[in-house]
């Protein structure tokens, strides 16, 4: 470098100016206090341009926070036409980019068309902060004072920038802090607002709830029923006054309904179970139970409970409505009882009932009728279905009935049979009444009785009667055994004795021939007597079932009388026979009719067994009654008939005798009735009674005789 000597005065001036510049530079940090790096850079640039009479100043602060723009170029106003900032930047980049990071560099280069001298001065160690580059066209640039000023300016700028940087960092931290405080505050404010809104909302909701509860309470208190509110676990929480009033118990007592007598003891186990299940499952409950009224009476209630749920479906509580259904229940019970009675009555009496709407063909049957027909309860009833059960032989009856029923309104009565799947036969008695409804439609309402038992009973009765008649005959015979034996043995005894005597007389010497002849004659007579007895007995023993033949009542009576004579004799009965001559024959079973006569004779005789103050007279009479029948009567003079028992005389097993079986008169009457006749008893004007029967004559003989 060539040192050019100057004028001393200039030299002094220059130095003085340098000192002034130094003072200015040293004052810079005070000015920069609190300034931003960009302000520091501006001030530094402008100061250097002015102090050092530079063409341009370049500052780059790439490592400084908040120092945007990081690169600035300031060209002196007088030189702006010579240099463009881009060219300067591009040149400096090339220059400093080649050089290692030295603290101070000098260069002479051409920017644009101008040759300039460049000086770079680092900011911070190894350009830790940035770099300052000053350029001037002067060839003596930089002079020593200028270098000094530059280095001091750089140091001052570095200090200022570092402080600014510190400040900036502090500010940044403070800003961040402020910001996060502000954000937090905002968040808190927002949260606060939310909370306030929520509180408001909740308050409003609570107010609404209270209002609703008040309204609900009003409704609940005025509802015509008993209401209880329960907790979600089923505890009674609240009840309306009606419930308190009904039970006559305060809420506290009602809470323990599960262990008190508030609910009828018979209902408690059942509803306790239903209630517990509902509370556990959340399903509504609905049951009927008896609740104790204040006066101790139990009335039926329908109890319905619904869960009250919140928006999420959680059960808050239960609301239970209790409705008094006692009247209805009683009516229902009465109806059920009545229906049960009817059904039971139908079952017992084997009567089914039905209705038949002729036009629609709609048929309704009672349960019993289904049972009688042997159909399932849910089978729809049609005429075809009925036809499938009716006995094939009775199908024409069914058709006849249906035709008549459809033709006209009327009442009708039928008896027909059913042929059941098991081939058994049922006898039905069917009565129906036709009615016209309000709509003019014809409907039949009727009853069907299963008379199978009756039918069978009648058959069995007829059989029993016939058996009984036989038993009676046998019984009478066994009672007669004594007199029969007597009847037979008496002549036999005579025969044996006479024959013995005869033999002895013939063995005499000389033989007593006259005596022998007499005894032989008596032997023959007694033999004939025995033969007669045997003949009559054979008639009684030989037949069993009823046979129809022509019977002469007088002859039949005489046979019986002959068999009974010895008994009459023993009982000192005086017999008077008044049998009408020329009595026409009757048709019937001779032996059975003789049974009746025998029974009447024995009764008459027995009735007089204790009579000693008058003759024991028995009058047997037969007579005509008009042209068509005969009357046979037996009149005794016995103890007579008690008016109170006269009606019972013909009942089986009724007897006034200690040793009697009491079937005589009832069997006798059934025998006579089987002969289309009649048997009756009358009290005599005098002592005793008269038993009579009337039997029609055989048709072709009555008029002839």
């Amino acid at each position, binding site marked *: 470098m060539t040192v050019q000597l100057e004028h001393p005065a200039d030299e002094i001036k220059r130095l003085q100016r340098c000192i002034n510049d130094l003072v200015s530079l040293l004052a810079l940090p005070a000015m920069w206090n609190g300034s931003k790096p960009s302000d520091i850079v501006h001030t530094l640039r402008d100061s250097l341009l002015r102090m050092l009479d530079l063409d341009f100043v370049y500052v780059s602060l790439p490592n400084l926070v908040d120092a945007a723009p990081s690169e600035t170029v300031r060209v002196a106003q007088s030189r702006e036409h010579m240099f463009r900032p881009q060219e300067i930047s591009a040149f400096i980049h090339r220059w400093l980019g080649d050089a290692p990071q030295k603290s101070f560099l000098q260069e002479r280069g051409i920017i644009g068309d101008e040759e300039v001298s460049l000086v770079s001065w680092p900011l911070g160690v190894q350009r830790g902060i940035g770099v300052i580059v000053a350029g001037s066209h002067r060839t003596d640039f930089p002079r020593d004072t200028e270098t000094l000023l530059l280095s001091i300016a750089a140091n001052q700028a570095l200090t200022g920038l570092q402080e600014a940087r510190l400040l900036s960092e502090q500010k940044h931290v403070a800003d961040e802090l402020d910001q996060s405080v502000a954000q937090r505050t905002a968040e808190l404010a927002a949260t606060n607002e939310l909370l306030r809104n929520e509180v408001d909302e909740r308050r409003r909701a609570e107010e609404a709830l209270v209002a609703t509860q008040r309204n609900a309470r009003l409704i609940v208190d005025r509802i015509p029923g008993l209401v209880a509110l329960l907790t979600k676990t089923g505890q009674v929480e609240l009840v309306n006054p009606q419930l308190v009033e009904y039970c006559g118990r305060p809420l506290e007592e009602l809470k323990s309904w599960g262990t008190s007598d508030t609910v009828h003891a018979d209902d408690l186990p059942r509803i306790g179970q239903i209630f517990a299940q509902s509370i556990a499952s959340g399903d509504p409950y609905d049951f009927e139970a008896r609740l104790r009224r204040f006066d101790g009476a139990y009335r039926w209630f329908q109890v319905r409970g619904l869960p009250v749920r919140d928006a999420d479906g959680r059960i808050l509580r239960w609301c239970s409505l209790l409705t008094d259904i006692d009247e209805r229940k009683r009516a229902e019970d009465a109806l059920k009882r009545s229906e049960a009675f009817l059904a039971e009555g139908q079952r017992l009496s084997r009567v089914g009932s039905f209705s038949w709407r002729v036009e629609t063909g709609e048929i309704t049957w009672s349960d019993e009728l289904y049972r009688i027909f042997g159909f399932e309860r849910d089978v729809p009833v049609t005429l075809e279905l009925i036809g499938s059960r009716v006995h094939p032989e009775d199908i024409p009856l069914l058709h006849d009935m249906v035709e008549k029923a459809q033709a006209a309104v009327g009442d009708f009565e039928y008896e027909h049979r059913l042929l059941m799947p098991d081939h058994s036969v049922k006898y039905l008695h069917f009565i129906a009444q036709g009615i016209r409804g309000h709509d003019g439609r014809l409907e039949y309402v009727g009853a069907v009785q299963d008379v199978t038992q009756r039918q069978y009973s009648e058959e069995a009765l007829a059989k029993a009667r016939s058996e009984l008649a036989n038993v009676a005959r046998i019984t009478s015979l066994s009672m007669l055994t*004594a007199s029969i*034996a*007597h009847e*037979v*043995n*008496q*002549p*036999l*005894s*005579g*025969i*044996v*004795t*006479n024959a*013995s*005597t005869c033999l*002895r*007389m013939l063995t005499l010497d000389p033989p007593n021939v006259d*005596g022998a002849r*007499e*005894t032989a004659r*008596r032997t023959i*007579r*007694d033999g004939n*007597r025995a033969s007669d007895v045997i003949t009559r007995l054979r008639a009684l023993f030989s037949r069993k079932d009823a046979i129809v033949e022509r019977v002469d009542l007088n002859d039949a009576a005489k046979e019986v009388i002959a068999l009974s004579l010895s008994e009459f*004799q*023993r*009982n*000192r009965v005086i017999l008077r026979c008044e049998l009408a001559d020329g009595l026409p024959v009757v048709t019937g079973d001779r032996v059975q009719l003789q049974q009746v006569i025998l029974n009447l004779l024995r009764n008459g005789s027995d009735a007089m067994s204790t009579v000693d103050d008058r003759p024991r007279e028995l009058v047997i009479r037969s007579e005509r009654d008009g042209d068509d029948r005969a009357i046979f009567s037996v009149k005794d003079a016995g103890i007579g008939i008690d008016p109170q028992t006269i009606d019972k005389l013909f009942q089986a097993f009724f007897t006034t005798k200690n040793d009697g079986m009491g079937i005589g008169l009832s069997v006798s009457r059934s025998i006579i009735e089987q002969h289309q006749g009649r048997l009756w008893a009358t009290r005599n004007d005098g002592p005793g009674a008269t038993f009579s029967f009337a039997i029609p004559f055989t048709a072709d003989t009555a008029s002839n005789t």
Partner: protein
Amino acid sequence: MNSSKEKIGGEHPLVAIVDDDESVRESLPDLLGEFGFATHSFASAEEFLTSDCLAQTKCLVLDVAMPGMTGFDLQRELKLRGCGIPIIFISAQKDEIIRRRALQQGAVEFLFKPFSDTALLHALNTALRVT
């Protein structure tokens, strides 16, 4: 009605017959006559009791079943009167119970009708031995 076929003298013991059956009253006296007894027949117990031959009667042939007083009634009555006439019952009713009762009451024999002449003779001999 009664009839008697008495042998003259005391060697023919008197047998009384009481039976309501006529054929017995006809046939039995002839047979007893052949046996050598005197007989007197009665149709009822009452007739016998009212007759005057109780004292002479050595044996009584008595029917059980009779109208009015029965054979047993007569047996009882005679016992009440202290009259010890041996009794032979005859009956057309073959009833062992009645027979046993009669024998217990002191009857000599009880014959069911019809009975043989030897059975009757045996009974009569027994009866007369008793007295």
